[in-house]
C-alpha cells in the first residue's frame, strides 16, 4: 500500500509538471527536500539519544512498571495479545502519556521501543494486531494540550489563544474512539477473511 502511494505521489507530480511546465520547481524541490530530510534525521539524533537514555534509566528504576500497573486494566483491554507483565505495556503507556501532554518528541522514541517489543512478541515482519491498534491510537492523536497551535495563535494576537483547547479535546476524543472502533472492525474482518 505504501509502495503504491509513494510511487503515485512521485509519478503524478512529475507527469503533472511535464504537462504544466513546473519542471524547474520540481527539479529544485527533489534535491532540497532530500537534504531537508537528512537534516531532519540528524536533528532527531539529539532527541532520540536523550529520551532513550532517560527512558532506560526510568525503566531500570522501575518507573515504567509502576505506570504499567496503574493503567493495566485499560491497556490490557486494548491490547489483548500482549502478556500482562510484558515491557511493551510500559512503553505503550509512556508513549500515550507523552502524547497526551503534547510531548511529541518524547513520544516517538517510546513508541518505537513499544513497537520493538511487540515485534519480539510476534517474531515476524508482518504487522501484528497489537501494532496496528497502537498505530491507530497514535495516528488519531491523543493531544490534550496543543502547545504549538496555542503558540502560533498567540503570535498572531488571538483574543483567546486557548479557546480552541476544549474543542480540540472533544475532537481528539471522538477521533480516538473512532480509531479504536475502526481498528476492531478491520481486525475482525481480516480474521473472517483468513478463516
Amino acid at each position: 500500500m505504501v509502495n503504491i502511494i509513494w510511487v503515485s505521489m512521485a509519478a503524478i507530480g512529475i507527469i503533472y509538471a511535464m504537462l504544466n511546465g513546473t519542471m524547474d520547481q520540481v527539479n529544485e524541490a527533489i534535491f532540497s527536500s532530500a537534504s531537508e530530510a537528512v537534516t531532519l534525521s540528524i536533528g532527531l539524533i539529539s532527541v532520540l539519544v536523550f529520551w532513550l537514555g532517560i527512558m532506560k534509566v526510568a525503566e531500570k528504576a522501575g518507573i515504567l512498571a509502576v505506570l504499567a500497573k496503574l493503567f493495566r486494566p485499560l491497556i490490557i483491554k486494548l491490547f489483548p495479545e500482549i502478556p500482562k507483565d510484558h515491557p511493551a505495556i510500559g512503553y505503550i503507556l509512556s508513549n500515550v502519556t507523552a502524547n497526551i501532554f503534547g510531548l511529541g518528541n518524547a513520544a516517538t522514541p517510546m513508541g518505537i521501543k513499544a513497537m520493538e517489543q511487540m515485534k519480539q512478541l510476534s517474531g515476524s515482519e508482518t504487522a501484528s494486531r497489537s501494532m496496528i491498534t497502537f498505530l491507530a491510537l497514535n495516528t488519531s492523536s491523543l493531544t490534550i494540550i496543543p502547545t504549538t497551535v496555542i503558540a502560533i495563535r498567540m503570535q498572531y494576537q488571538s483574543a483567546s489563544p486557548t479557546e480552541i483547547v476544549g474543542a480540540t479535546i472533544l475532537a481528539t476524543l471522538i477521533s480516538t474512539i473512532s480509531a479504536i472502533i475502526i481498528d476492531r472492525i478491520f481486525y475482525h474482518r481480516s480474521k473472517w477473511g483468513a478463516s
Partner: protein
Amino acid sequence: MISAWLVPCFILIVLVTATIKKVPAYEVFVEGGKEGVKMAFSLLPFLVGMIVAITILRSSGALEAFTDLLGPILTTIGVPPDIIPLALVRPISGTAALGMTTELIHTYGPDSFIGRLASVMQGSTDTTLYILTIYFGAIGIKKMRYALKVGLLADLMGIIASIVIVSLLFG
C-alpha cells in the same frame, strides 16, 4: 506553563528514583542513548524517500489542482475550501501541515472560523504516514496489512469531528 514544568519534573523524578534504587543512572543513560544514535540513522532513508515524494507532488502544483477541483462540492456542504489542502496534507506531512495552519491563521486571523478550524484540526489529528514510516521502518515491518487504512480512516474521523465541533461551538 504546565508543559514547561512537565519535562524537567519528569527527569527529576526519574533520576531521584534511580538513585534511591541504586541504579547507576549515568551509565544506564549512555547505554540507552547509544540505541538512539542507531535508530536515527536507520530512519534516514525512510524519511528521505517519503519527504522527496511529497515535495514532488506539492512543487509540481498537482496537489493544488486537486484542491481546486474539490472546492465547489465542499462549499455546498459548509466546508470552507481553503481548509482542504490542510486536511489532505495533515496525514502525510506534519511540518507541511503546521506550515499550512500557520498560513491559514495568518491569512484569516486566529479568531476567524477558518483560523479556529485549522487550529483544532492540527491538534486533533496526526501525521499517519510519518508515524507509519517511522514506527514500522525502525523495526523492519514489511507487510503492514490493514494499518494504513485504519490510520487514514482515523484521520478522516478527526477531520470530520473538527469541522462539526468547530461549527457547533463557534459557527
